[in-house]
């Protein structure tokens, strides 16, 4: 297990999780999540970064039981939700909510916002009609949505307002864990920061545990305590958010990091991007060895045949790369002022450009 956390504290524990779609016999098996392990402490914000198709949304939906694992498992605290009957599962899952990517599709177009926000309580059969409405208004207030919005239909309010209502709805059942799947991706940049602050505030007020899924490094590093970087269904790097961002130990993280735009044009010009070479591999036939080897700037022969094991390189930092030590040495070298220590590495120039 990763992170060395005792199970008592863990809100979520993911052990060697596989989620596949399609049919192996027809040759259409897609391993969207392929052997992922991590655990999330109670009250923690755990970020998951990856490009589209990396399996991060599949992972998120599996965490709350909307998809079943094909191998491995997910523990909610000490409970395995996939052992439940359908009825027990429906009761259990109230405490594990997911806020979805697209607020525009998340509401039934025939229900008003108030009806939609009340729906979780209707399903759970909690409280009287008046109590449900009262709680719904309290929730709308909590997410800073004015009560006038309650009687509107989803198409009558903006995307940002919808996402607030979406969050209010997810909070109605007093969940302990919320998976936030690309929650700001569909919003204008101007309200993204606003929304992230809302998430932070709710987390502090309600003691929530978040799994924060995004392709946006800035978003994830801004809000998360720890992050996991996913590539092609596998986690390539896990560690504290700031450490992973500042000294990436996996070439993929490094490349993602370098693709981020700088604020000033000067800094932008000074920075040399690591442009990933090659095609994104086919999901039906993943590459042999390390899955990143087809695009990795630091690729060597070993990577094509041998799959790197995930190992703890520094306390709390896990990497799945054969040559992570080299990257660590380089970054330490830079830290000590010995930039370019002469490792005969093809990727070295790229790393130096990051400084």
């Amino acid at each position, binding site marked *: 297990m990763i992170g060395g956390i005792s199970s008592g504290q863990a809100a979520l524990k993911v052990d060697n999780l596989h989620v596949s779609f399609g049919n192996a016999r027809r040759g259409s098996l897609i391993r969207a999540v392929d052997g992922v392990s991590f655990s999330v402490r109670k009250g923690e*914000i755990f970020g998951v970064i990856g490009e589209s198709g990396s399996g991060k949304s599949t992972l998120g939906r599996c965490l*709350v039981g909307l998809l079943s694992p094909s191998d491995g498992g997910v523990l909610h605290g000490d409970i395995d939700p996939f052992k439940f009957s359908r009825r027990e599962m429906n009761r259990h899952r*109230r405490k594990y*909510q997911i806020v979805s990517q697209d607020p525009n599709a998340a509401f039934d*177009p*025939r229900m008003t916002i108030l009806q939609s926000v009340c729906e979780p309580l209707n399903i759970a059969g909690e409280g009287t009609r008046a109590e449900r409405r009262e709680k719904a208004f*309290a929730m709308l207030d909590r997410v800073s949505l004015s009560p006038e919005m309650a*009687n509107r239909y989803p*198409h009558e309010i903006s995307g940002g307002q919808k996402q607030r209502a979406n969050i209010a709805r997810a909070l109605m059942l007093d969940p302990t864990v919320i998976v936030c799947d690309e929650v700001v991706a569909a919003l204008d940049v101007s309200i993204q920061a606003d929304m992230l602050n809302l998430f932070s505030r709710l987390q*502090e007020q309600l003691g929530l545990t978040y799994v924060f899924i995004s392709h946006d490094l800035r978003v994830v590093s801004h809000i998360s305590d720890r992050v996991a970087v996913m590539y092609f269904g596998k986690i390539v790097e896990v560690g504290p958010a700031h450490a992973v961002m500042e000294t990436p130990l996996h070439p993929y993280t490094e490349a993602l990091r370098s693709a981020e735009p700088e604020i000033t044009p000067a800094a932008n010009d000074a920075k040399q991007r690591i442009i990933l070479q090659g095609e994104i591999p086919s999901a039906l036939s993943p590459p042999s060895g390390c899955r990143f080897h087809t695009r990795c700037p630091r690729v060597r022969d070993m990577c094509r045949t041998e799959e790197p094991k995930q190992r703890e390189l520094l306390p709390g930092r896990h990497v799945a790369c054969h040559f992570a030590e080299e990257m660590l040495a380089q970054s330490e070298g830079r830290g000590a002022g010995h930039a370019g220590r002469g490792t005969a590495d093809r990727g070295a120039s790229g790393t130096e450009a990051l400084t």
Partner: protein
Amino acid sequence: MTDTTNMTSVTESPVKPAQRPALPAPARFRFWAWLWSDKRALISLAYLAILVLAAVFAPVLAPYPPNQQNLMDLLMPPSAQHWLGTDDLGRDTLSRLMYGSYNALYAASLAVGIGIVIGVPLGVFIGFVGGWIDEVGSRIIDGVLAFPPIVLAVAVTGALGIGLTNAMIAVGFAFAPVLARTMRAQTLVVKNALYVEAATGFGASRLHLILRHILPNAIQPVIVEVTLMLAVALLAEAGLSFLSLGVQPPESSWGGMLARAYHYVEVAPEQMYAPGFAIMLTALAFNTLGESIRVLLDPTIKRG
């Protein structure tokens, strides 16, 4: 941030009702206001209401008994005595039209009713469950669809005996797979919608998903299809009566009247107009009303 803060229950801090601005009264659906704003619906509904009244009160309102023959006045054009003229046996066309409207409405409702009761649940079921049930169900639907409704009705009346009810049950069975197919396709779309997944995430049962989300969102095209079907059923009744498989003479039916008029088209062409227009206008009224209902049920279309 990683420290677990005390779980503050959300219910502890409800907004005081006084702080909350008064909500506008929940928009109650006002039928008459809607009808007044939608003139086409108003006209269609008024026409259909007149038709229903004519059918129900035909014994009171009809100027003549529908089967009373007056052999002195054959194939008369419209006149003061006979507003719509008389047929080839001297029977009053207006009276027969009024009595016939009962058969027309009964036939259309029966056929479409059977189609809805069988087709809609079937379509939702196979669409929602999916897998091999969907495969098998869809093939059966395709098989039944291969039969034209009229041909099926001819076969059924041949087997069960000639009569309006048998014929319309057959037409209803022919309608069911059409509705089932539409409903299945819509269910497939809606069941993968994010809001259905969201409801699943709140622990909703499958019944809740179907009744609360899938059915209301999937049924819209079916409502339109049903109004079209009412028109088709009306024409089927007319057609089957025209082929003398439906309403049996001397009982009156629009199709039967049209069939008689057809025989005298060279002598008295105006005989076709009364039953022909009755069929056409009724079909048109159903269609127009269906379109208005579709617009009414879609909250994303602004009314007014």
